[in-house]
């Protein structure tokens, strides 16, 4: 079912660092992943996971270090160019186009790879984009809600639309930032099924706060803490890793943050 991951690297970072004033949010991260992989990034709140995404997607510019996508350097490229090269992302806090329909939301993303946006052709004539949008609606399961105004969707559906918009750009690498945040248990399970299906076609990095969600899913898990990768490996190995347990089970005796998250490791 799942194709073998290739040896080619899809994403690599070298000493990636982001400082906000005195605070180091991402600290000399060397990250690398192969094409076709489904990678999970976990770690407590404030570990630098979202900042890491922001650096890769061009939403923030790194203070130091370099980012390579499919062997080409993309450090300091603006977000729109990175997107057109094939990296798409979703946001932890839902970021959709609220007052247009679900269909138009995905459409907006699906047309960006066209270099020239012809002002004199009616959008509905563009059959190739129409097909893509229909396909994505199917994948995220919003087909029967395509005519609805996005802001009228339920929270769960808005989270799915968020993914749909990202897929619209036809990415090679998809960055999912806590896609199931605020979803019910059932919705979470369904969404994870969809992510699993997607991972057959593209490389995915999924940031999760809750480790159990990604345990069965991911090929490899990277654990972030204080802006660094403290452990990396297959899920079973990560579960047993002492440093990870320290972070999650509150091994650091004075750290309330660690204890707070201990319930997340099952």
């Amino acid at each position, binding site marked *: 079912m799942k194709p073998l991951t290739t040896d080619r690297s899809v994403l690599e970072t070298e000493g990636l660092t982001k400082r906000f004033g005195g605070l180091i949010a991402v600290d000399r991260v060397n990250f690398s992943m192969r094409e076709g992989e489904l990678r999970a990034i976990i770690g407590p709140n404030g570990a630098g996971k979202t900042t890491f995404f922001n650096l890769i997607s061009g*939403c923030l510019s790194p203070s130091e270090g370099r980012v390579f996508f499919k062997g080409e350097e993309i450090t300091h490229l*603006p977000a729109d160019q990175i997107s057109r090269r094939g990296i798409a992302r979703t946001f932890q806090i839902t970021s959709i*186009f*609220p007052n247009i329909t679900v269909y138009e939301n995905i459409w*907006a993303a699906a047309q960006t790879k066209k270099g020239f946006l012809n002002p004199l052709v009616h959008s509905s004539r*563009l059959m190739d984009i129409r097909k893509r949008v229909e396909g994505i609606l199917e994948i995220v399961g919003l087909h029967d809600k*395509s005519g609805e105004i996005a802001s009228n969707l339920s929270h769960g559906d808005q989270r799915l639309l968020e993914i749909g918009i990202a897929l619209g*750009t036809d990415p090679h690498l998809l960055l999912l930032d806590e896609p199931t945040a605020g979803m019910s248990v059932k919705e979470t399970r369904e969404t994870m099924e969809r992510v699993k299906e997607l991972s057959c076609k593209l490389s995915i990095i999924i940031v999760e706060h809750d480790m159990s969600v990604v345990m069965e899913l991911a090929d490899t898990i990277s654990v972030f803490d204080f802006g660094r990768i403290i452990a990396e490996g297959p899920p079973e190995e990560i579960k047993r890793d002492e440093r990870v347990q320290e972070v999650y089970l509150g091994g650091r005796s004075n750290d309330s943050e660690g204890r707070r998250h201990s319930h997340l490791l099952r």
Partner: protein
Amino acid sequence: MASLAGKPEDRMKLWKGERLFQIGFAVLVAVLVLAPPFLRSYHKRLLTEILIWGLFALAFDIIYGYTGMLSFGQALFFGVGAYGMAIPILRWDLNLWVALLFAVIASIAFAWPIGYFAVKVSGAYFVIITIIFSLIFFFIALDWRWLTGGDNGLTLTAPSIPLGNWKLSLVDPLTNYYFVLALVLACYLITRRIVASPLGKAFQAIRENEDRARVIGYKVERFKLISYIISGAISGLSGALYAATSRYANVDFLHWTVSGDAVVWTLVGGAGTLIGPMIGSGLLIVFEDYVSSWFKNYPIIVGILVIGVVITAPQGIVGLLRERFGRKER
């Protein structure tokens, strides 16, 4: 996207709304084409003026209603268009078509560099920077009396339209009216196509969520600039038509408070609907014409109306109709 809506009942509603819109639009155009010969010349002129200001409001709708940039500076391009029409006719004795072309090119020549800088800032700063640019050129125009006539403006004789061997004089209000109607209608149809095109979809994505638009691959500043230039060109055209019709151009046209009129008309009619701003300007200009004969401080009522619309129905008249009849974005 009418054919693509999800549930069948939604599709029905959408289809019905679409049909209603098309019927309404056909009736409106028929009235605009057929009625004027039977109107008094005062009303012909009033209708002409409504079309021109409606076009100005339409230009504003592209930048605000579709791209989400609240500009209080579009009057600058209206003024440039008006002078772009008046100066070639008055000083260089050029014919109307050339002057019209010159006016539009002149407003693009202003909108491009100004827009280049203006789109670098957003939100409150954008509003202010558009006012500032508008004022700079207002003061320059005020100062350069040799070019603009300063406070007194420029007055021209009625230009005529050369059509092959023919010459139609704009002295006749009816000729003037049809001349304006043809151009305004053409502009409306073109912009309607633009907002339904991929480019228009990009504008709307930026309006809805600028940051997200960037992350899915839009070079936001470029599209904002394109929107700004399109809006500027159409504003310029409306200014040129105004100068040809009223036969004068004045520095006051450039003032940012003139842009305020377009903001008001667009909001009342329904931002982001194209037809709404035109309907809004029609209603308010007729209202002004009617009320100002016995209450010359009618802007008080306009002010109250604006505040009322902003608080209770920011989607405007056409927006409300759409909600009622279910016609979504085209």
